[in-house]
């Protein structure tokens, strides 16, 4: 089968690989119909996630058709079309039973801090991902969710990560009615977080990025104010000024390790790897939120340390929340939102690229070429 193949920092290709096999009675094999490149895949692509082994297949956002099931699989059957949450969760452990499906303890041997994620390095469990014609899906009774017959596959594939993660970012921000919410990062997750902030009753939503085309997209999609930090001397001071010198009630970090905007952070975090990514957005978030406010982190950082003004967090009485998204917990509500027209996931898709050209897809998304927001990869068998 055709699959994406990681060869080293900024080097990927599509090659023939052996078909995935059932390894556990609760496994299923899925024929992939749509799969996306995610902003967090860029941390892998740039070689910044420890234990990203050459020969791995990335891809944690995919939908497909079940073609084979293990002996213990009862909730889905061959022929079902499913959307597959990006986290692998057993549904039975101490954490899964609390709804923390992003923090399962029975799917990742290699690291205890991180739950298991499809196609996201051995640090996240060492699973091959969905940027392939077929994928092995463990715990098929738990994760895979049948796509409602009236739902577009393009909408479904964005329910595997982007929509739930944007939604949970807003949820974790603890938004109260009328709150001012600032979102750092106008990538797909930030755009959805800004859109969902309204669902929690925000009174004002502001998004900050450095790419004008993304700010314009966010403005139209999320009905929010959008500002380019390259046009400011100091984004924190700017936010203080436009919030009557109080700061925002809630700030969402939807950037993570690849942040631009601060030379010291970029050099130590992205070039020298002396910290677990560049923490510029998180730094700005802590400093621009109101005293007593909430910082919600969905941007991805590595497993080591970051330079952030933690003293200000204490002095300002902040609450910092973050987690990998519990996709399964949120799906019932979000499917409802899509069916009722409250959310329009597929409008985020700007590019559709054949899986054969995966290297071009990564370059385009990574270098933000051709006004790219969200890229869908189409495996050759997707249209069968």
């Amino acid at each position, binding site marked *: 089968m055709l699959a994406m193949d990681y060869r080293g920092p900024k080097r990927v290709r599509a090659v023939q690989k052996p078909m995935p096999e059932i390894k556990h009675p609760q496994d299923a094999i899925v024929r992939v119909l749509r799969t996306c490149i995610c902003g967090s895949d860029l941390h892998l692509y740039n070689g910044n996630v420890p234990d990203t082994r050459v020969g791995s297949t990335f891809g944690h956002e995919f939908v497909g058709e079940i073609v084979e099931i293990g002996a213990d699989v009862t909730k889905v059957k061959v022929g079902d079309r499913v959307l597959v949450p990006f986290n692998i969760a057993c549904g039975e452990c101490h954490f899964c*039973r609390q709804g923390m499906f992003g923090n399962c303890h029975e799917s990742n*041997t290699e690291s205890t801090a991180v739950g298991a994620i499809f196609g996201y390095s051995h640090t996240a469990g060492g699973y091959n991902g969905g940027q392939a014609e077929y994928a092995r899906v463990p715990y098929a009774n738990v994760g895979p969710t049948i796509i409602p017959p009236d739902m577009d596959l393009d909408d479904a594939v964005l329910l595997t990560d982007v929509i739930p993660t944007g939604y949970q970012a807003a949820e974790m921000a603890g938004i109260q009615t009328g709150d001012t919410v600032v979102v750092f990062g106008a990538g797909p997750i930030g755009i959805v977080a800004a859109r969902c902030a309204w669902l929690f009753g925000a009174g004002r939503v502001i998004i900050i990025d450095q790419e004008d085309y993304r700010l314009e997209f966010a403005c139209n999609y999320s009905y929010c104010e959008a500002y380019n930090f390259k046009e400011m001397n100091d984004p924190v001071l700017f936010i203080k000024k436009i919030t009557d010198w109080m700061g925002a009630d809630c700030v969402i970090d939807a950037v993570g390790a690849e942040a631009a905007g601060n030379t010291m952070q970029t050099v130590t975090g992205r070039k020298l790897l002396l910290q677990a990514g560049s923490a510029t957005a998180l730094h700005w978030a802590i400093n621009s939120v109101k005293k007593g406010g909430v910082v919600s982190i969905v941007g991805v950082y590595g497993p080591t340390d970051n330079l952030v003004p933690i003293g200000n967090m204490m002095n300002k009485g902040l609450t910092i929340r973050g987690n990998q998204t519990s996709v399964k917990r949120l799906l019932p509500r979000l499917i409802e939102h899509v069916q009722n027209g409250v959310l329009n996931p597929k409008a985020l898709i700007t590019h559709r690229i054949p899986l054969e050209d995966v290297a071009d897809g990564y370059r*385009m998304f990574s270098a933000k070429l051709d006004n790219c927001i969200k890229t869908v990869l189409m495996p050759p068998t997707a249209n069968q």
Partner: protein
Amino acid sequence: MEKTPKNTPKNPRIDPKQIKGWGIDADPKNDPTYPMRKRMNVGEDPDSKHRPDHLQPEDTEVLRSIERPDVSAVFGTPAPPMGLSGLIRRAAFKYSENEYKHWLPLIVADRVGVVEGIVADLSHGKLPNIWAEKGYDMEWKYNRPAFVTKLATIGAVTAGLVVWLSSGKKKQPKPVKKDYLSRF
């Protein structure tokens, strides 16, 4: 590696309910993980060690974080540790996730793995097409002026380095005339 500290005190466990005033202001709603977590402590979980019925057979080498007692019920197997990078990874997994001695060798192993990948390609008679793997066609199509400038800069710097290094070879160190006597 973990060491048990010497002179560890016995640390007797006290039933907190016997402490005066315990829990009088407790508010279960005041939980920063709400609603991300249905709050449940291990002590309240009748089956906190619950595991799935079947365990995936270990038919391939899985590196296990020493912060957990066992291999998880399922695990991925795309690239078992091999070669020099594999040796480094195995060494890294002797340390907990709390230590740089775990993470930094893993990053080194990833870079070693890239070289091993190129060697593996060549040994299979395949010359990796770096231009295509890096997706440079897209830069050429959508970002040509900046891309050409970048390539030209890399080319000029490389050429400059070559000239500088090769010119260095020609320079013969001048024999120093030692004139010890004049110093006195």
